[in-house]
């Protein structure tokens, strides 16, 4: 590809990525404007002192965002409901263990991540020979055959989304095959729009390590997608 195309491609995608991330990083303005963040901090502080009304407000304010993120961390809608619910319950039960430098949402996301991973482990044990086990990442051909079935509409789709765009659908399915930690970091960045500081706080890692992990997660996703595409070609 000529250099000009590379340049064009880079500019285009960077521009788009920057715009999206600017919007997402301004996150703020999208989901939690400064006033909302302050308000949530107040509710959180009150909740730590035992004010359950304040905690209820916090739940109401965060539930949609958290539920959306959790929906991309787990494979079944009912799991999203359970995990989100359990997250709030754990948050309430352990509210005094939250570090002072964490935002309420970041802290709750971390809880949700752990609950989702724990939940997934339980499911893996329960359904070792089930579909869930088959789509474990890098498990070999069996995984791909399951994914092909899903793409062909022969298998159950955990989340029936509105979109029919196959590219998006392919990515969504591929994400289900990622390791929980890889999946979580992609959810944090691309689904939830967290900035690096929030992510580093949630994962408790330095910035460089965070970026490295993010890249490896993207690479893992790419590997799964390419395996899926390769499988499709074989089928056809």
């Amino acid at each position, binding site marked *: 590809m000529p250099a000009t195309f590379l340049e064009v491609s880079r500019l285009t995608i960077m521009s788009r*990525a920057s715009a*999206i991330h600017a919007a997402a990083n301004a996150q703020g303005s999208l989901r939690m*404007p400064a006033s909302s963040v302050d308000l949530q901090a107040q509710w959180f502080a009150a909740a730590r002192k035992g004010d359950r009304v304040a905690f209820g407000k916090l739940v109401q*304010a965060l539930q949609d965002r958290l539920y959306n993120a959790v929906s*991309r961390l787990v494979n079944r809608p009912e799991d999203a409901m359970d995990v*989100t619910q359990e997250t709030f319950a754990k948050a309430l039960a352990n509210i005094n263990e939250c570090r002072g430098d964490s935002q309420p949402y970041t802290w709750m996301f971390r809880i949700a991540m752990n609950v989702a991973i724990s939940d997934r482990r339980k499911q893996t044990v329960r359904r070792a020979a089930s579909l869930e086990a088959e789509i474990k990442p890098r498990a070999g051909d069996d995984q791909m055959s399951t994914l092909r079935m899903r793409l062909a509409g022969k298998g159950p789709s955990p989340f029936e989304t509105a979109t029919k765009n196959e590219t998006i659908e392919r*990515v969504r399915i591929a994400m289900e095959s990622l390791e929980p930690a890889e999946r979580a970091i992609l959810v944090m960045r691309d689904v939830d729009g967290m900035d690096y500081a929030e992510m580093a706080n949630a994962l408790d890692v330095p910035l*460089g390590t965070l970026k490295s992990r993010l*890249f490896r997660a*993207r690479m893992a996703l790419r590997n799964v997608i390419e395996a899926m595409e390769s499988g499709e070609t074989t089928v056809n």
Partner: protein
Amino acid sequence: MNQSQEQLETLLSDYVEGNLAGEELAALEKYLESNPGLRDTVNRMMIDSEAIRSLPRIAAPFDFSEAVRGQFERDLLLDDAMTAYPRRRRISSLLASVAAMLLLFVGVGAMAYWILANRPAPYLDVAMNSPTSHDAAQDESQGKSRDKLDSVEGPPPSAKVAPDAFADRSPAQALPGAGRPDVKATDPDAAGILSAARRLQINAPAPSEVKELIDESPRYNRRARAIVIDAKDAAPANRALQNFMATHTVRTENLAFDAARNRAVRQGASGGLADSTPVQSPNLQVSGVTSNSAAALGAQELARNASIQENAPHTQVLLAYDMTEAQADDLQASLQSNLAAATAYELGVEDPTARENDGSAGGTGPVAKTEAEVVPATSTSTPTHTAQPVPSSQPALLAIGDRLLITLVDPDASNLKTQREVSIDSNGMIQLPMLDAIHAADMTIVALRRSIADEYVTKKLMSQPIIDIERPARFEVTSSNDAQQQAANGDRTDLEKAVGERDELKSKGLVKEHGDAGLFDVYLIVRGQAAPTTQPIAPPTTQPQ
């Protein structure tokens, strides 16, 4: 993993996210040039990332709050009952049964208490607002005052309530108009809108969250689209709507909210504070849509909330039904064009068409904030020339230096979408992958779109490419005054924010890209100043294009 490996991954991660610049970027690109496989992979990562961002957002189920509350209650009960048993998981089945019975007993009691006391439970009382529990209580408590004030013109007497009165009330109480008993029975889709609006009031988030709540309501059976436009001047958006309505047949309602009414709401007034007036346009079909429909009520809630939260003097909502994808695209194009013109006008550029079309220049027209001169980036040869915004009714021609965002969708390749941002070079040409240079200068966007599509088909690269071209507005400020420069930059940022927000909507899948057009609603929320406050959008005086 060694240090250099992690450093490389960090750099590549930054590259994928578009965070690199300068020497780092140049060095990495050079490295990628020598590693084409890796370069291809990171480019595909960018597409993956965008696809993830495009995943539809999933809102919590409507009964989620109730479920959480139930769990808290159960936990409280169990905590009390199991004080002597630190490990709850070892609870015996007998004790679990007792706890369940206790829970049932307490639950029934709480429900009875709730109904009798006509107020929410002791905790989460503000937070919880399920649609099923909302209507009766709110209608009962507010129906009379709302009916009374519905007939009041202008700020109602209660507008004299102390300013902080609003803050002391729950939003649901302070913002009446919701909860009409016939809502759910008449229009289930619209009931979803109304429910979303109610939740919005409770949450009191930023208006930009409006679109998410609308779009992701699980009660929605059809697509929704929300376009939020924050413009300093609402008139250009109105002109865009005029143009749109003059050439399209769409069932719509236009809801306008003026400053006085919004101020009254902020000051604690209760009552019907929103106008709902069908737009007067020869091409409009408003049959079956009344201002009392649930959808209209929902839209009122959204608009009112947007106004109040932002303290905006004017908010306007266009409620459209069964708008096709093409119609929505036309509307967006018209909006973009008009907002670009508005930005120039805000910067002090005379725009006669704005005053003519606005019809409200006397005191309500856009205000020239600075004397800074702006010129379109395409007019670099005459830097002191004062820009004349392109009238929205005339197709704008592309010019040398214009930057275009070109989206290419290949239906034969699973609707694979790629985007390129290109500039029209000094020869009036643009470069696209796999194609020879294409002439773009002095062409309309529609003509260029056709030309690009023909090229791909002629070269047998695609059989039926779908091309979309956007031209972000660019202005160069020539004033040397720092303050003016700052103001101008601020305006430009606003414009880019508006356009970017639309892109954000696209990225979230709110702007549809699929083939099932015709079954979604459109909410256009315009917030700005100096728009007609008492009259709806006027019929267009001329037929554009």
